[in-house]
């Protein structure tokens, strides 16, 4: 007996309906609201916005006064990405090439600290980098100590961000290294290339998709993060994320905060479009 079945598109969309409703209500509508607020102006009284549809908030956001914060945010994100690449590549390469049957265990070992409460880890660094923290005392033994420790410095913020987002780099790099055909390296050696030349001419182009994917996965959250700059940095380390946070949390200036949130989203969209063009699926 042939059973009558609902058409495929209908059953699929029905199954996806609850997800769609939830994300529409608690993700798309709120994001649209922020876009709307970014064209509003601040009204007197707390949490008030009026809607004359003006670009005032964007003019303020792009004011030269905020330029150093933009620059600093991008510099943090770029440095963090570079540091994650430097630390992540040996790790990914080692697990893919030499991990053998321990590959999954090694990957899990990379992931465990990542899943272990972000806040707790940043908190640990806060204590470690403090004036009488372990790092400063150890460095003091070799004469590299610093009065007051390393908190409130740019270096501390980049270190914290790198620590927080390293696994985002390792996973896609690992996938790329695993797919990379190692015989290409031998071919390169056989053809007379040295180690350095082989690395830059053969290995790096070969794992390029992983490098790109990992860089974007680190760059985006690093640019938006404000907890790390707050806990490890000071007033001079405020970032884009922390400015957005200030505007909303104090109830200070929601339109300005919204405009900055939209600009941050624009960065994400640019990054995604660039990535999408390379034919990679985000999900």
């Amino acid at each position, binding site marked *: 007996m042939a059973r009558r079945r609902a058409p495929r598109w209908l059953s699929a969309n029905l199954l996806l309906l609850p997800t769609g409703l939830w994300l529409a209500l608690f993700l798309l509508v709120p994001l649209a609201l922020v876009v709307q607020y970014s064209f509003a102006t601040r009204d007197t009284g707390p949490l008030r916005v009026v809607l004359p549809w003006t670009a005032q908030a964007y003019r303020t956001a792009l004011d030269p006064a905020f330029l150093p914060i933009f620059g600093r945010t991008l510099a943090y994100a770029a440095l963090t990405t570079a540091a994650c690449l430097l630390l992540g590549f040996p790790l990914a390469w080692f697990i893919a090439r030499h991990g053998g049957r321990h590959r999954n265990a090694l990957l899990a070992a990379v992931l465990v600290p990542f899943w272990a409460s972000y806040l707790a880890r940043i908190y640990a660094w806060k204590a470690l980098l403090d004036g009488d923290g372990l790092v400063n005392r150890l460095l003091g033994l070799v004469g590299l100590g610093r009065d007051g420790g390393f908190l409130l410095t740019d270096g501390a913020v980049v270190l914290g961000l790198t620590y927080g987002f390293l696994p985002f780099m390792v996973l896609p790099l690992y996938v790329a290294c695993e797919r990379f055909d190692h015989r290409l390296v031998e071919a390169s050696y056989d053809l007379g290339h040295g180690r350095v030349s082989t690395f830059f001419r053969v290995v790096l182009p070969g794992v390029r998709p992983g490098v790109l994917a990992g860089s974007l996965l680190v760059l985006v959250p690093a640019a938006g993060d404000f907890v790390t700059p707050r806990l490890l940095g000071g007033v001079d380390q405020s970032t884009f994320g922390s400015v957005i946070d200030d505007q909303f949390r104090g109830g200070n200036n*929601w339109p300005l905060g919204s405009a900055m949130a939209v600009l941050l989203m624009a960065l994400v969209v640019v990054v995604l479009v660039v990535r999408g063009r390379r034919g990679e699926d985000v999900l």
Partner: protein
Amino acid sequence: MSARPALNPGNDAAGARENAPRTRRGRGGRRPWALIAAVAVVFAFLYAPILWLALVSFNDSRTVSRFTGFSTRWYAELVVDERVRSALGLTLRLALSSAAVCTVVGTLAAFGLRRVFRGRGLWTVLLSLPLVVPEVVMGVSLLAFCVKLAGIPLGFGALLAAHVAFSLSFVVVVVRSRLAGMDLRLEEAAADLGAGPLTAFRTVTLPLVAPAVVAGAAFAFLLSFDDLVISSYLTGVGSTTLPVFIYGQASKRGVSPEIVALSTLMVAVSAALLLVGVAAVSWRARRAGRRAELALPN
């Protein structure tokens, strides 16, 4: 150096893998010591802060920088701290509720995405959004939404709505990848043998995806349990989650042993759950795969 042709496009992936042990020792037959050293340094970097947290949490002294003796007093103080207990209660209730909703809704979505249909690309884009929207943007937009548009009071309800919104995609990804690796013929075989759609689902499909659903639930729990940024905008008066509480204490008063002990506990819970998730996926997948092979030898 190599007897085989250096480049042989005809060789398949298995050939490349076969090749791996021989290349393991590098060019001169040496172990890659420099690489091993670099990997050891990175692992030390990853684990040092966590080990330090655990060590200091058992320190007797109030200053976290000097170790004076072993003690569990900070844990004892946590247990009697009313604020910690209520924050922990809320965090656990929230994480359990969010994981439950995400598991049901996300598993349905994963099944919906199983076959090709018009509009699947659009759904994929929608589902990838929560993974790429910066947390701070998601947080402030939900704050504006709850306060100004929807009139949802800040607290448990608002937190649950947000946590499901940012965890859902992870459950879909995990369950979907398991479904993608599943043999459709198993269900067809069940149907051929006379099982109705519900019976086939219950006896064949569900046991096969169960490990992924368990892992998805564990990840959703963890995401909710650990979330700080988005939650920090949505906690109401008297309804604070544990990470928001820790953050408040950390930015107000700096490093205190109670907070170190609390952080250590959170790390322990997260690590335990991660292991449960990973074990569920690998063990059940292996077992289910073996059973499926027995039932359907090609």
